[in-house]
Each structure stands twice: as structure tokens, then as C-alpha cells.
């Protein structure tokens, strides 16, 4: 077959690249307004209710590896396809620095995996430079985004409680589930230490918000995808209803290579490679919306070079790819001897923690600039691969039922009983903090490497600053304080300076944002405050790339609110014939 670009016949109002949080929301809002939408997704279709794809309510022993993470990075039952490494789709790193890039090529993208932690950014998060002089302020305020957060809350559903905290805005919440046993114990320890432990805010339906989705039935497996759509994923909650409108054509397995432009520099559509036949196609549209993930959208713009845009599209400023930043992450486990030999009952609950710790201190009194929140784990889970590992580091420290302490390790009936006794007595703490966006943390096009589709790949350069390292130290100190206040035993050795206090590689928390940031000045930003490219009026980016700064919050709820806002701006601008 001769190599040629095959055009798709249909002309669209809007072409959206990517079906995760940003793309899904855009597809829903734009199609409901009657616009004809082409939605391109680089991976296959996915529906957690499809018996061929479902993993919910499977048992560990349904997997020959008992759920180990050797096929899927978060274990065999995790809904997200893809991972840190994808065959034939490499990325590279520069100057000896580290960055791990998680990609999920499938309908709904990474919303199939995430922890459903759905936090609004607070007033200070949008104006942090005004507060501490670091990074940059957003061109928008909390008050401008709040109405969209409100609508996202009601449309998708998030449980939580009104707490009136200064930088943790309340929303339209569903009632939260009651705390589990270890969560009550953490709350008590928090009270002692003046650390707030409040109901978590997760987009899981304790009560339903519409007739298409059922309330949660408490299997704790949101990361596996929900067969009754009781939690949020873009594919189930946004794309599925958008498809019903009849206005959306889904192009799956469509790997977008380039944004196409005309002589005037306006976007005319995108070129993509159909993964099923490896042929090149194009889709034409009046408006192009990128929602391929912060780094993938930056890659697309940088790869969309033309005489008019030699630096890549929408990149006269040179800012595309820069200001890349991910949340910080550091964690510690503990053991609670008082929970040994506990009574068994179904403690699954929702998929994730029922309480969490929002940032509670004043950074002006600390040696690092930005905060973090703490996510909690523990309880009587379904054992999967790794259950029972390392018991020899613990069972020599815990008195037996007879009050005597045995030598660590061992074998036989008494060891077998230790596993039973220790079941459900472990807890875990994970800090997730804000990293300050810097120009010198970036992704760019690698001049020498292409992927299997011939598309030039990304090269990363990323370092942590003292602010993030000291923040991780503070996390580690706090975890130990909490574990001790609970009467628990911290497990392993405390992470110290040799590991940057357990600070994970950038990218590991999968909150990377900032690569096509918004701003009022076209010289220092890629997008205006409506997620619209300064230089290309009919081009929008509605993923995390638009963020000026990450907060100490998970980015999804803000991506959704901003995508909704940008989509309505597109509708308005089309009506006014401005684009």
C-alpha cells in the first residue's frame, strides 16, 4: 500500500485530543451544546462493566501472579493500561536527572487509575506568589473558578464535609462514609498532636447524583474501575453520556502526531496514526482542543512545527514544556500492636481512605515554602502479592499471646499464626506536597529519538529544590510522630538525607502539570486565562498543562473545572464568531 495521508471525510466543529479528565469534560460540555465533536484517544475503548475488561470483585487467586505489579504497574487488577514504560514509546532524560512518566493509553486515560481524591485548590493556591514571592500567580482567582467547581461537584459527585478551613474550600458534598477503626485511631493521635484529621473528599457516590450511576457498594476497589459507575472516571461519567448525544465521534487507537495549521497560522485539525493499520489520517475541525496530558500536549505542540511556527505551535515564548512540576511524595508504614488478633468484619469501605490530613501549618514559620496533605492506608484488605513479606523484621519485636517474645523469623505453626495475628494491624502514611514550578524543570523534544510511530519523543530535565527536600523531611518527622502517638511501631528505617527523605522521583505521583501554563503575558505563558493559546485563537489546552502552580492538592478536580470553563468559553466564542 502506498504511503499517503488519508483524510476523514467529516468536518467537525471541535476536535479533542485525549479522553481523560480534561478531554472528557470538554466532550460532554461541547456536545451538549450541539457542537459536532471528534474525540481522539490513543488507546482502546474501555468500559469497566464490560465482562471482558472488568477486574472488579476478582479474587487475588484469579490472577496467576496474585495481583503482582509485573504486568500492570499498580497490580493486575488496576484498571489503567499502560504505565511508566510503554513498548515502542520511549522518553529520555537529561543531565543525569530523573523523571518517570506514567501514560495510560485508553478511553478515560489516567482517570481509570487515580485515587478519586477530589480537592479544590484554595484562594491562596491561585495567588501563591503574592503570599510568599515564589513561582507565579495564576491569572485567575479562586472566586472565578468556584462556580465551576460547584457544578463539577454536582455533576460528578464528591463526598466530604464542610470544615470552613481557610485554603481548603468546601463544596457541594455527598455525605462521607464513617471512619474505619484505624482511621479513628489516627484521628485520636491527630487530636493529641494538633494535626487535623477530617473526612476525605473522594469522587465516589455514597449517594447517587443521577439515574445512570448507582451508589457505591463498598468493595474498596475504585482503582479497578466500577461496574455500576459508582465512582468517577472520565470514560464512565463524561465520555459515555457525551457519546449518547450522537454528536461525538470517538476515534480510538488514534495516536495524534501533529496539530495542522493553515497559512494564517490557524489550527485546521490534527494528523494521527491509526494504531490498527499504522496509516496516517487527519481530522479537520474549526477548533482544536488538546487534552492529551500535560507532557503529551506539550510534545504535540513542540512537534507541530511549520514555517509560521518554527519553534513549535503556540511557542514563540519558548515556554511550552517548561515549568513542569509534579507533586512531591514520601511515605512510611507502621504497625499497631493493639490491633493484633482483631475481630474480622467487612472493612472494605470505599476505594480509599475515609479520612485524611489537609495541610495544617503556616509555612512562614517553617524552612520550606509550600504544604502537603497526608493520605492514609490500613485495614483488613484482600491480601495480594506481597502480603506477609518481611515478617522476620517484625515478629521478633512483638510479644506472643503468652507474653513472650520469640526470635525473629522462624517457620511452622507458630509462624503461620503470626500472619493471622498481624493481619489488619498495619498502617501507612503518604505525603503529597506542592513543588514550586521552575523554568529549569522541563520537557523538550529529544533531537535523536523517535517512537515506533516515527514521532519525536520527549526528553526530561527535572531536579528537586531545597524546598521540596525539606518538605519531605517534615513529612517523615510527622509520620513518625503520628505512629508513636498511636502507640505504633514505625516500620523499616526512617528515610534520611541520603534518599532526600524518601522523596520519590519526579513523575511518580502522576500529578505533573505546568507545561503549557496560562498567564496574561504572552511572553511568559502559552495560554490565556481561558486555556486558549495566545498565538492560535482556535487552539485550547484543557489538561494539567495549563496550571501555573500545583497546589498541595490532587489536580483532577481543577482540570475538570477549568475544562468546563474553557469549553463554555469556546461555545461563546464560536457564537460570537471570534474563532
Amino acid at each position: 500500500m502506498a504511503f499517503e495521508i488519508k483524510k476523514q471525510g467529516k468536518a467537525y466543529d471541535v476536535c479533542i485530543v485525549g479522553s481523560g479528565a480534561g478531554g472528557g469534560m470538554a466532550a460532554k460540555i461541547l456536545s451538549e451544546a450541539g457542537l459536532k465533536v471528534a474525540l481522539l484517544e490513543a488507546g482502546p475503548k474501555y468500559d469497566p462493566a464490560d465482562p471482558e475488561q472488568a477486574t472488579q470483585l476478582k479474587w487475588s487467586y484469579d490472577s496467576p501472579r496474585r495481583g503482582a505489579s509485573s504486568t500492570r504497574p499498580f497490580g493486575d487488577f488496576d484498571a489503567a493500561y499502560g504505565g511508566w514504560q510503554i513498548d515502542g514509546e520511549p522518553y529520555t532524560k537529561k543531565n543525569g536527572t530523573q523523571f518517570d512518566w506514567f501514560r495510560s493509553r485508553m478511553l478515560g486515560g489516567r482517570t481509570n487509575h487515580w485515587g478519586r481524591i477530589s480537592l479544590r485548590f484554595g484562594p491562596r493556591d491561585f495567588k501563591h506568589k503574592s503570599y510568599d514571592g515564589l513561582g507565579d500567580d495564576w491569572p485567575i482567582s479562586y472566586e472565578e473558578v468556584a462556580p465551576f467547581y460547584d457544578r463539577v461537584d454536582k455533576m460528578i459527585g464528591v463526598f466530604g464535609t464542610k470544615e470552613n478551613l481557610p485554603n481548603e474550600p468546601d463544596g457541594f458534598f455527598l455525605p462521607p462514609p464513617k471512619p474505619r477503626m484505624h482511621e479513628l485511631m489516627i484521628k485520636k493521635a491527630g487530636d493529641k498532636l494538633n494535626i487535623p484529621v477530617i473526612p476525605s473528599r473522594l469522587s465516589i457516590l455514597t449517594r447517587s447524583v443521577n439515574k445512570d450511576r448507582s451508589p457505591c457498594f463498598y468493595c474498596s476497589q475504585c482503582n479497578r474501575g466500577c461496574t455500576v459507575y459508582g465512582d468517577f472516571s472520565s470514560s464512565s461519567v463524561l465520555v459515555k453520556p457525551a457519546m449518547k448525544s450522537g454528536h461525538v465521534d470517538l476515534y480510538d487507537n488514534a495516536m495524534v502526531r501533529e496539530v495542522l495549521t493553515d497559512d494564517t497560522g490557524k489550527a485546521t485539525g490534527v494528523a494521527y496514526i491509526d494504531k490498527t493499520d499504522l496509516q496516517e489520517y487527519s481530522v479537520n475541525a474549526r477548533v482544536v482542543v488538546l487534552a492529551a496530558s500535560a507532557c503529551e500536549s506539550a510534545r504535540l505542540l513542540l512537534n507541530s512545527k511549520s514555517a509560521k511556527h518554527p519553534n513549535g505551535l503556540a511557542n514563540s515564548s519558548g515556554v511550552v514544556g517548561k515549568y513542569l512540576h509534579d507533586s512531591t511524595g514520601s511515605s512510611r508504614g507502621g504497625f499497631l500492636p493493639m490491633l493484633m488478633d482483631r475481630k474480622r468484619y467487612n472493612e472494605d469501605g470505599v476505594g480509599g481512605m475515609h479520612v485524611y490530613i489537609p495541610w495544617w501549618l503556616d509555612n512562614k514559620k517553617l524552612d520550606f515554602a509550600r504544604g502537603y496533605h497526608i493520605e492514609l492506608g490500613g485495614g483488613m484488605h484482600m491480601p495480594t502479592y506481597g502480603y506477609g513479606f518481611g515478617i522476620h523484621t517484625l515478629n521478633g519485636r512483638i510479644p506472643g499471646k503468652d507474653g513472650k517474645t520469640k526470635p525473629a523469623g522462624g517457620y511452622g505453626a507458630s509462624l503461620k499464626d503470626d500472619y493471622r495475628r498481624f493481619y489488619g494491624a498495619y498502617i501507612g502514611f503518604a505525603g503529597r506536597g506542592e513543588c514550586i514550578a521552575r523554568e529549569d524543570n522541563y520537557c523538550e523534544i529529544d533531537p535523536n529519538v523517535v517512537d515506533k510511530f516515527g514521532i519525536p519523543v520527549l526528553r526530561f530535565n527535572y531536579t528537586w529544590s531545597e524546598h521540596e527536600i525539606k518538605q519531605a523531611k517534615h513529612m517523615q518527622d510527622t509520620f513518625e510522630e503520628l505512629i508513636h502517638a498511636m502507640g505504633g511501631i514505625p516500620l523499616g528505617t526512617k528515610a534520611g538525607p541520603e534518599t532526600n527523605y524518601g522523596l520519590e522521583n519526579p513523575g511518580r505521583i502522576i500529578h505533573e502539570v505546568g507545561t503549557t501554563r496560562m498567564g496574561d503575558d504572552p511572553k511568559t505563558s502559552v495560554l490565556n486565562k481561558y486555556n486558549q493559546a495566545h498565538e492560535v485563537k482556535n487552539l485550547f489546552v484543557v489538561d494539567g498543562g495549563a496550571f501555573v502552580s500545583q497546589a498541595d492538592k490532587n489536580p483532577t478536580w481543577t482540570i475538570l473545572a477549568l475544562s468546563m470553563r474553557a469549553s463554555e468559553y469556546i461555545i461563546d466564542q464560536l457564537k460570537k464568531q471570534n474563532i
Partner: protein
Amino acid sequence: MDRRESLKALALGTLSVGTIISATGCEDKKGESGSKDKAGDMPGYGRTADEVKRDKALMGEPFFTAAEMKTITVLADMIIPKDEHSGSASDAKVPEFIGFIVKDIPDHQLPMRGGLKWLDTQCLKRYNAAFVDCSEQQRKEMLDLIAYPETALPENSQGVAFFNRMRDLTATGFFTSKMGIKDLGYVGNTPNEWDGVPADVLQQYGYSYDEKTLATCLKIEDRGKLMTWD
């Protein structure tokens, strides 16, 4: 009613969770959830085509020799023996699991193969027999040298490292099996209505839900009602 049917009913709101729990019970009657995968011989657990291929390839060639498998089986049953609660490691097919996992996670291969060989060498030196051919008493003596990391002699440190791995793989294989999960008493992975920690458990640890928690948390009877805010 099977799980899929009951979930459908749940989704349609025609059935309460309580009914489903009593209708299906906690025990899955067939023992296996999921249908047979069209492409492979394994029960389906939501695999993509590439993943089915990977599983099939891993299932193919064994890694361990028959002699190695025999040693693994004896060791696994010494680590997790049958007791009044449940069967032994080999009753739960732990050796088969270990045979698979070393292919799935190749980092286990060399330490396991080398460790088994180390064990046999030690037994040959001490008892002039391979581990499996030693008497029960001799095997216990041998394990006592390597099963207690904090008191083991430095000259046996390689044996300790091997046995730690062997203990971990045996325990994880056992407690993720159907038999082991039942033994541990995990009772979830089924449609449920979470209404907090049972009262007797709260009492046992001296806790109660405070008024604010009770006032703000879900009233379980509201679970089926559509949420409105206006």
C-alpha cells in the same frame, strides 16, 4: 443469583444490598469468578490481548527442575504446615505459585536457584544427603540454622537471605490463595453496606463515633436516595 446478575440488579436499583448478600452469600459457588478467556486457558480477569499473550508465554516452559520443585514443596510445607485452621502450603498449591512467580518476576530466579543449591550443599556436607533426602530431624536442624536472622551465625548468612525470600514467597502464595484468604478471615470483596465499625469493636478499643461524625456521615438508609442540594 450470580455476581454479575446481582450487580446488574444493584445498578438498576431493583435490589437492596442486603438482599444480594443473603442471595449470593460470601462464598462464590463456582470458586472461580469470571468466564474463560477466549484467547487463553486461564479464567478471565480482564486481560488485554497483549496480557493474555504474556500470561500464556509465562505458563509455557517451567523454570525449576523436578528436583528443585520437590525441595520447594518440602520447604513450603515446613514454613506453612497444616494446622487446625487450614491446610498446608502445598495443599494451597503454593509450590505451583512459586514456580510461576519466578518466571513473572525474574529477579527471584537466581537467588532461588542458587539458594536451593546452597541448601543442598550444606546438607551434603553435614548429612551426606540432599535436603529432601535428609531425615525430618536433620531438615529441622538445617532450617534452624537459617530461619532466625538475628541469631544465625555469619557463615550461614547466604542461607538466611535465601530462607527469608522462601518464607516471603510461601506466605504470600498461601495467604493469597482461596484457602489462605479464608484462614485469614478476610470477608470483603462482595457488595456491602458500610455503616461504620461494628459497635462491639468500637467498644473493645474504647472508641465511639462523635456527634459531628454521626450528624455528617451517610445514613445508610439514604444510600439509595438521589442526592439534591437545593
